[in-house]
């Protein structure tokens, strides 16, 4: 018995050392991936919708970083040659531009999984939902929203109302970016849906958009992160604001906020996941892009936030909200009653003109 204790001690310490060694090796083997996304409710929906399952099935750990759009941070990494973002959840126009500029790695569409009904990915996705650097996954929309508890008796119901300070006095929230705002301004100024981009393409049309924005400029509170507008609306910082429809849905159902979405003039956009050129985790990144693009992942995401799948074969998979059981269909930006007054974001126009618009916009903003 006397020498049993040291023996036990030796055994225990051997086991600890072994455990530590194997643990260390396991940690070294365990791959991780940095996924850059839009934070808040949307990032949470991604985690619940498909990232947790991805981690379980592949053993790859996904680390999430926040991002508010644009290519600047990606370019800085690629140019300096120190890439620490692996995959980025992006707007389509940025994806196309990033691809043109060599900031994203090319992704062959044939590497993507077939549709739920077996159609090849290239046919399951809409034609402009495929870029040389990857497919798109979701439709989301920028809408304008008001807080029913604070608005008064008359309710706004068109984009023009958003710009009408006389009928609806009070501050407005808008994204600190030319995107959507220029389109909104023209729509409010009476430009028909199908002429918006043709109008923006002319110097006079652009001037018209900025002049319309001028009329409410001193009442605008600018937001950058998607999580801000619901917060601003709840705090009473603004009476109405533009916002991503999914965030508003979440605030409505999970926090019981009396927010009302005005679908008139919604700007419908698509988003996909791009792989940063030069990532050290290309294999894992590719797995991730493929996983997120499966019809099931898209539909599962749609159970946590009101963004609809970009694949045709996944549309029929839209079901109920995972936490409250609400039917998701009427809340989706692509549902028939919401989409008839929608403006489809012209990614080609934005990928060509985005940079110049950013400069014009910031000039306008600082004046």
């Amino acid at each position, binding site marked *: 018995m006397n020498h049993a204790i040291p023996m036990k001690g030796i055994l225990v310490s051997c086991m600890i050392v072994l455990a530590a060694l194997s643990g260390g090796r396991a940690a070294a083997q365990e791959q991780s991936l940095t996924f850059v996304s839009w934070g808040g409710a949307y990032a949470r929906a991604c985690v619940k919708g498909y990232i947790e399952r991805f981690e379980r099935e592949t053993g790859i750990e996904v680390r999430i970083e926040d991002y508010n759009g644009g290519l600047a941070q990606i370019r800085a990494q690629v140019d300096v040659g120190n890439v*620490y973002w692996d995959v980025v959840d992006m707007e389509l126009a940025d994806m196309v531009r990033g691809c043109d500029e060599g900031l994203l790695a090319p992704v062959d569409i044939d590497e993507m999984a077939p549709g739920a009904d077996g159609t090849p990915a290239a046919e399951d996705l809409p034609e402009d939902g495929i870029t040389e650097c990857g497919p798109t996954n979701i439709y989301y929309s920028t809408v304008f929203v008001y807080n029913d508890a604070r608005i008064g008796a008359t309710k706004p119901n068109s984009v023009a109302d958003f710009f009408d300070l006389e009928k609806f006095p009070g501050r407005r929230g808008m994204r600190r970016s030319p995107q959507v705002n220029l389109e909104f301004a023209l729509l409010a100024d009476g430009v028909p849906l199908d002429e918006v981009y043709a109008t923006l393409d002319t110097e006079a049309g652009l001037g018209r958009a900025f002049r319309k924005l001028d009329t409410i400029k001193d009442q605008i509170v600018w937001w*950058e992160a998607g999580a801000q507008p619901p917060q601003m609306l709840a705090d009473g910082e603004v009476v109405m604001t533009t916002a991503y429809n999914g965030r508003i849905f979440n605030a409505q159902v999970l926090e019981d906020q009396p927010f009302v979405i005005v679908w008139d003039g919604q700007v419908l956009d698509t988003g996909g996941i791009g792989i940063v050129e030069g990532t050290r985790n290309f294999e894992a990144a590719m797995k991730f892009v493929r996983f997120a693009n499966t019809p099931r992942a898209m539909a599962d995401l749609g159970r946590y936030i009101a963004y609809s799948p970009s694949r045709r074969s996944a549309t029929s998979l839209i079901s109920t909200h995972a936490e409250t059981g609400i039917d998701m269909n009427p809340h989706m930006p692509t549902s028939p009653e919401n989409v008839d007054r929608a403006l489809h974001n012209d990614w080609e126009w934005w990928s060509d003109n985005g940079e110049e618009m950013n400069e014009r916009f910031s000039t306008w903003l600082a004046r």
Partner: protein
Amino acid sequence: MTTTAEQGFWHIAYLGFCALVFAFLIAPILVIVPLSFNAEPYFTFTEGMLRLDADAWSLRWYRQVVEDEEWSRALANSLLIGVSATVLATALGTLAALGLSNPAMPARRFATGLLISPMVTPVIISAAGMFFFYSELGLAQTHLGLILAHAALGTPFVVITVTATLAGYDENLSRAAASMGAGPLTVFRRVQLPLIAPGVVSGGIFAFAASFDEVVVVLFMGGIEQRTIPRQMWSGIREEISPAILAVAVFLIVFAVLFLLTVEWLRRRNAR
């Protein structure tokens, strides 16, 4: 009589005005302290706090900061970069100050001007230039790059404080020591250094504080692995403003007061 009354009035007005200015200086810093104990995620005093309701006060933000891995990583980065930059800046700055306070130093005024310039150059310009240059050298997004950059920005503080201390140094002491056979190194180590030590330490504290509070260079040149405390605060203020920032701010205020008291103590010691 009227003149004294009038003078009395003006004197009180003068004191009142000064009191207001002092309040302007210090109140914004003090107001953060109670708010960091807010139990609610707001940046203002809740009714409960004003009623001194115990439930309205809590340590939750402090707990959140202490438990949050990002903040502790940021602290580690800040300390690593700050301490390394300070050592570098203090060593180089003290040597240079010894040279600059020698009247025989050629082009003294010009050299001083160059060495102090990092302090007055707008940091946005320094950061932009450093970003371009360090990127070309492969030093962007590395700890080494930030250490070098912060050391460069910190050296003027060391040069200024050590030069100031040396202004009160009596050269005869060195001469006396030398005449008794001490070599230049011994003179420096045994005679000069102990006398200028308070200046060196103050300079080092200034350099450390400058690095510990620097955000623009980190913003431009630091990657995700070089996030420091100010960088973390920056994104906190810009993106997801939470009272946890106030808890960190209180930490930083405590740091500031400690630095300040140390430097003032050293200064008074030196003055004697």
